[in-house]
């Protein structure tokens, strides 16, 4: 192939790369520095409210993975169902959030944690004691619950960390600038 003024395209490309050299880094050092996740994050767990749940099992019927297992027994005193067992196998759960959407009594929430690696498969099974909202250990996410979403911290957006100034097209000025600065300093001395 024939190219007129060979090398111009590469030089142009290099100017962009060089400009990036002078920019602030956009990456964050993950385990030490954590960014806020979305307020609607669908984390790796489900959170269940003992008080609100009526044992209707809509969630278990909605789950297409069959991850929710629920057992109830009738309570003849107050004409309600006692939830004997509420178990979610997060190994099967794909965190789709459809069960949260389906719960008619606002008793099911997505969690906010995302570091859920476990050593054994059976540790992935959440019992109702682990996922109780009332225990106050776990922070429910705002997925489908705007009130909870408002209480969570604002999501860190990359778009807000990169300023307009940094996005301006690259120019080959920095070199001349540094030169003038140096010469100015030398003149002072």
């Amino acid at each position, binding site marked *: *192939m024939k*190219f007129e003024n*060979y*090398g*111009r*395209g*590469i030089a*142009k*490309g290099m*100017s*962009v*790369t060089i400009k*990036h050299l002078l920019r602030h880094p*956009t990456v964050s050092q993950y385990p030490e520095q954590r960014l806020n*996740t*979305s*307020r*609607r*994050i*669908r984390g790796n767990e489900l959170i269940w409210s003992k008080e609100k749940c009526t044992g209707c099992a809509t969630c278990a019927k*909605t789950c*297409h993975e069959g991850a929710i297992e629920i057992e109830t027994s009738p309570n003849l005193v107050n004409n309600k169902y006692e939830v004997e067992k509420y178990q979610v196998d997060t190994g099967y759960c*794909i*965190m*789709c*959030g*459809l069960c949260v*959407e*389906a719960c008619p009594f606002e008793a099911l929430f*997505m969690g906010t944690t995302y570091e859920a690696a476990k050593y054994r498969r059976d540790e992935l099974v959440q019992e109702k004691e682990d996922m109780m909202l009332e225990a106050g250990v776990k922070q429910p*996410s705002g*997925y*489908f619950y705007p009130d909870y*979403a408002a209480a969570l911290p*604002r*999501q860190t*957006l*990359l*778009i*807000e960390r*990169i300023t*307009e100034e940094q*996005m*301006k*097209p*690259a120019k080959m000025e920095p070199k001349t600038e540094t030169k003038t600065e140096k010469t100015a300093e030398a003149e002072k001395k």
Partner: protein
Amino acid sequence: MTLKTEPFVLNMGPVHPSTHGVFRMRVVLDGEVVTDMEPVFGYLHRGIEKLAEERTYGGIIPLTDRLDYIAAMSNNFGYVLSVEKLAGIKVPERAEYIRVIMAELQRIASYLIIIGAFLNECGAYFTPFVYMFREREKIIDLFEMVSGQRLTYNYMRVGGVSQDLPEEFLPALDKFLAQMPVCIDEYDRLLKENEILLARSKGVGILSKETAINGSVTGPALRGSGVKWDIRRADPYSIYDRFEFDIPTGSAGDCYDRYRVRVEEMRQSLRIIKQAREQMPAGPVRTKVPHLVRPPVGETYAHIETPKGELGFYLVSDTSISPYRIHIRAPSLINLTVLRELIIGWKIADLFVIFGSIDLTMGEVDR
């Protein structure tokens, strides 16, 4: 004395850094020149079409996320459109606009990956890729904000979208719309005239108009060959007839043209998002649809233009809560059929440049 020569058979993949998933090519080589190629796929087969027959119509949406996993929103969109067509469900105005914005953002995000990967294959090892990933990250941030996850969004629902946009979405979108054209210009500056890229991709892997049409190729690969065919225009779905946009086409049908078409389409997508953002009305985002949709007996086919090409969902209903049959017309699989013709005659170093320019996602090829 004569040297005895015989064709050399080389297995590329299934796990090769350039195959974008698990894909194997049995390549027959004569020296460095490819004389024959046989694609071997199926390593990522999960039986999604069969799995879908046992699920409710709503429960299939998370499965469609896993088809073309780098453009999950588009898959959601295609699927819900076909169910709505079958069941005759009307979608609120605001939801339509939100869907279009999401689909176009997804198109940009997907093209960014493909362009980055394509440049990787041309030898610009990971530098442009990281630039493009930075911009994609901004889009992923937006998706995370609305849907709660970064890759498998599961955002669209039969009859609308799952939730309305959060209040911080539109300001962030405006910022993105202001920044993105600058970024695209920057990529052009970085690469458009780069001699190495031109030498590697101009005139390489020419897909002629006839071959493209005979092979039912769709998407940027078809438009790169100079055929003006975009389903958003040819058979407008959703509300695409309300927007003004151009369909960029290439002329030669080589790798470079396909790359340019994608870059231009990103600009057009930005135009569509801008218009949609201005016209977007207030109102509900979801119609009341029964929890278990039961469409009447019948069959339907709805297709949309995804970043890969024409994605179609063929649904057959027997009034039960799950479809009787679902067939997915995956653009990647059909675009794959012309790969052999493109590759034969080129050197082994060009093989992946051509492969990358066609843009295949294995999740969609195997389903």
